[in-house]
């Protein structure tokens, strides 16, 4: 082992893990990586929070985080699942928002009251037109809705404000 693993290095390694359901984002950009601690013996403890209660990707993420940390020299890695404060789309970082748009996925609006953000148009991530309509309020993954653009015809996903 080459020297002691620092908390920064451990965080950076964990932060690079991507979300398997929205693979354009890392778990740090998605806002579900809540903390990384390293003790004197090189054991790492990581706090993760699920995006939604039934998120079946969390187990895969846990495995990936463990692998990523072992690669950088961590000893035992333990992952804690933190429920509070609950994740919301507000936790997606500015970089994350930009990467979503670049990947053709409309980022979420800031979260308002109630489950449905009324009145704010969702812009087409491809042509920028605000003339888009909801095709399905539930998308392939639980945090997205499916929309189409009336201007360019593009179907696209929109991360719902949660």
């Amino acid at each position, binding site marked *: 082992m080459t020297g002691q693993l620092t908390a920064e290095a451990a965080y950076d390694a964990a932060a690079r893990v991507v979300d*398997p*359901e929205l*693979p354009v984002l890392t778990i740090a950009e998605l806002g579900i990586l809540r903390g990384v601690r390293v003790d004197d013996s090189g054991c790492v403890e990581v706090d993760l929070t699920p995006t939604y209660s*039934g998120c*079946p*990707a969390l*187990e*895969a993420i846990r495995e990936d985080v463990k692998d990523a940390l072992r690669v950088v020299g961590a000893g035992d890695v333990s992952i804690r699942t933190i429920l509070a404060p609950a994740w919301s789309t507000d936790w997606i970082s500015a970089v994350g928002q930009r990467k979503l748009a670049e990947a*053709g996925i409309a980022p979420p609006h800031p979260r308002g009251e109630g489950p449905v953000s009324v009145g704010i148009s969702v812009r087409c991530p*491809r042509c920028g037109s605000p003339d888009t309509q909801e*095709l*399905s309020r*539930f*998308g*392939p*993954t*639980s945090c997205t809705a*499916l929309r*189409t653009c009336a201007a*360019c*015809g*593009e*179907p696209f*996903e929109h991360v719902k404000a949660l």
Partner: protein
Amino acid sequence: SDQERQFEALLAADERIEPRDQFPEGYRRTLIRQIAQHAHSEIIGMQPEGNWITRAPSLRRKAILIAKVQDEAGHGLYLYAAAETLGVSRAELLDQLHTGAQKYSSIFNYPTLTWADIGAIGWLVDGAAITNQVPLCRCSYGPYARAMVRICKEESFHQRQGFDLLLTLSRGTPEQHAMAQDAVDRWWYPSLAMFGPPDARSTHGEESAAWGIKRFSNDELRQRFVDMTVPQSEVLGLRIPDPHLRWNPDRGHYDFTQPDYDELFRVIKGDGPCNQQRMEHRVRAHEEGAWVREAALAYAAKHSREVS
């Protein structure tokens, strides 16, 4: 004509064709057929996997399976929307599916007999699908290419989960290991057949290649799949049911036994184990849902009048 030259120029430059561009009718028809078949495969594919949702043996696996089937429905929606950019409605495409005029992937005409089949589908069927689809991410038609980018990423996750399911079984009790091996035994050749008939017997190939829709031949993709899958089977500790499978250092590829293409053609023509069941299930869901769709339209019509 100018339009044709422009189209050819875009293709030659490896640029994307977009919905508002001009393109030949044959290109449009070929794309519609391919995207529709892909969309149909996603929604019919929900059935064999949905068959195990209520019976999944852990809550985690149940959640993974539901999420996967949800993805498939979502992919179906996404792909029908991509097809709609070519001027054909989802309702029309569903009609074509229900009357048998358009096909879906024959692989879904095999039954899921045990829980291990869910793993085998993830590992082998999704693996084959990805091998087929990755080149499509560079397909000449923009909306389809972009849809494939999203879909391939999710399929990779599914494949990984299928692999993980099988690995757990393979390393589990002797009964579980046997269950996993049995599933691989049954799904291996149908998965190889997913790449279509051998190039010598294939139709559609040349046009699709010229139009930048299909970039590799069936046999090339099949070989790529075998080369990728065999090492994974060793990690899994499961045997590929092919006595002639072996590494050929001269070719730099695995030699393998071809699937039974007569069986493939039989299944395509309708005589697979589940063809009738899958279509009946699909048509029943559609027909039993008719009153719901009508009600939604009636409600929308009423209330759009109120607003206007």
